[in-house]
């Protein structure tokens, strides 16, 4: 596997607030990385740095280039969908397809047409006449037709209804991802993407608080459902997080042997959302 992105001591300050505080991480080719964090945690700043849309301190290499100096070279191999509805309202569907085809050397016209054929989007429509979901479908069709090495998705399904959201990720997985491509995605709807991720990265207050593969997450973290009577026993093992579930206690542990935990009660692999809450808040009563 080759390293696609390598960040070392990535720092970005807005005034005296650090959006990124000496962050280091790597993304390998073929990974689908979920970059998860609360609002203002530094997700978007990290993505902007990768895309060459902002200056920063520290070192960052994207496909072997510094995005500050060689944005143009980086953008040959990187695509991104920043948010819904950033396609300009006046642009017609056929114009969008033609434009991307003209400026992007890796754009496959036939592919874009094939993706669009599966939707109800009419070629002559303006973006302003399409529903929010259709605009995202169009954007995704344009991006998926580009043979890029890295796809960056920043809240791509924000404001879409559940049907479009599900279809978005299904299309992405079935029609785009082939094991050699790399995707970085941020979203608040963690539960919708957790099954497609290969890697998980939590970010909070400009720092990486978790950076692991999904297999690592499954082996390192475990949830135990136990009776209130055994709560103190469980607390002795220093859980990351505990909460009440239907009169029972649910504890989330890191790095405790499964055999030991099984003695306490029913064992589960935590969902990304639960892990996220645990990591962000720590122990709450």
């Amino acid at each position, binding site marked *: 596997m080759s390293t696609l992105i390598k960040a070392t001591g990535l720092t970005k300050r807005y005034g005296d607030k650090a959006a990124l505080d000496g962050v280091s991480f790597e993304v390998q080719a073929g990974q689908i990385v979920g970059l998860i964090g609360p609002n203002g945690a530094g997700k978007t700043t990290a993505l902007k740095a990768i895309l060459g849309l*902002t200056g920063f301190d520290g070192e960052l290499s994207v496909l072997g280039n510094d995005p500050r100096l060689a944005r143009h070279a980086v953008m040959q191999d990187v695509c991104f969908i*920043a948010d819904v509805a*950033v*396609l300009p309202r006046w642009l017609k569907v056929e*114009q969008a397809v033609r*434009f991307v085809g*003209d*400026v*992007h050397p890796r754009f496959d016209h036939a592919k874009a047409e094939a993706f669009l054929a599966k939707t109800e989007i009419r070629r002559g429509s303006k973006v302003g006449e399409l529903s929010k979901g259709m605009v995202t479908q169009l954007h995704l069709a344009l991006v998926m037709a580009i043979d890029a090495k890295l796809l960056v998705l920043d809240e791509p399904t924000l404001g879409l209804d559940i049907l479009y959201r599900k279809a978005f990720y299904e299309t992405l997985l079935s029609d785009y991802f082939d094991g050699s491509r790399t995707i970085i995605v941020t979203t608040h709807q963690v539960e919708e993407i957790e099954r497609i991720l290969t890697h998980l990265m939590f970010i909070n207050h400009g720092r990486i608080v978790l950076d692991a593969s999904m297999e690592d997450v499954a082996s390192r973290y475990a949830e135990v459902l136990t009776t209130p009577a055994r709560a103190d026993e469980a607390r002795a093992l220093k859980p990351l997080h505990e909460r009440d579930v239907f009169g029972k206690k649910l504890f989330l542990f890191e790095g405790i042997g499964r055999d030991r935990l099984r003695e306490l009660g029913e064992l589960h692999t935590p969902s990304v959302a639960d892990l996220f809450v645990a990591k962000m808040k720590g122990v709450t009563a």
Partner: protein
Amino acid sequence: MNTQLKTMTALVRREMWEHRGFWMVPAVMSALLTLLLMRVAFELFVNVEPDEIVRMNARIAEDARLATFMDQTHVAAMAFSSIGLAIGSIMMFVAFFYLLDSLYADRRDRSILFWRSMPVTDVQTVLSKLATVAIAAPLAAVGVLASAFVVWGALGAGVGLAVGFDHWWIGLNPLAWVLAVVQILGVVAGSMLIVAPFLGWLLLASAWAPRAPFLWATLPIAGVAILEEMAFETEYFLSTVFGHFEALFPKMFGEHFEGFGLRGSHGTIRVASGMDFSGAFLLEPRLWIGLAIAAGLVAIAIRLRRLRDDAAY
């Protein structure tokens, strides 16, 4: 096609998609003018005195300045280019607002994130806006005008034939259309070189403005002028800015230039014998200083394009 050129063509085409006014404004103006001309032609047809036409035919036959086919071609071309340039002067307003919006509108609606997700450099983006206003838009407008010339020529021929005017065919002369197009493009090309610093300034204001690019474009100029007036009681700044245009525009034309337009006085038709271009303005240091300033302003606009985007996302 070379990639650079292909990208630039695509960027300019994108501008023309968004700003349809570049061809629609001249199209609507031409259509309105056509309606007006039809009305005039009808009135002429209804009210004309046969004697008047006979006298006019005789006068033209005697006029030495209209003796040869080329003389007559020049007259027709001059008429066409005059109307064309009148419409063209309105296009200056379209161009003004286009430039103000060019590096601002996509930041406001956030579509800049889409444009910047493509492998296009800031240099290419900014230069494509300049190429649109200086090259593509004038060509589009002239294309519309050229088709209007054909319509107006046919209209003139129709009414000329109907009233018995000997030179009824004068507006149907394709050479006159071509000449008029060349004349208009010549004036536009020269004008673009002269107003270049102004174009650069508008791009800079558009790239800079956090909002209200119109105010960012106009208030600093007014502010400097007012401060200078208050501090030194002079108007050196304004006279330099506007003096640039006053000094250079007349030098685009030679001594034989008699202004645009047909001038009828006391029954005689007096027409400039043709567009007398002069390259004199190209030798003025002022022009080159202006072009250097324009290049500097565009370079700053390119830098700002990157900085401002940072703030927009």
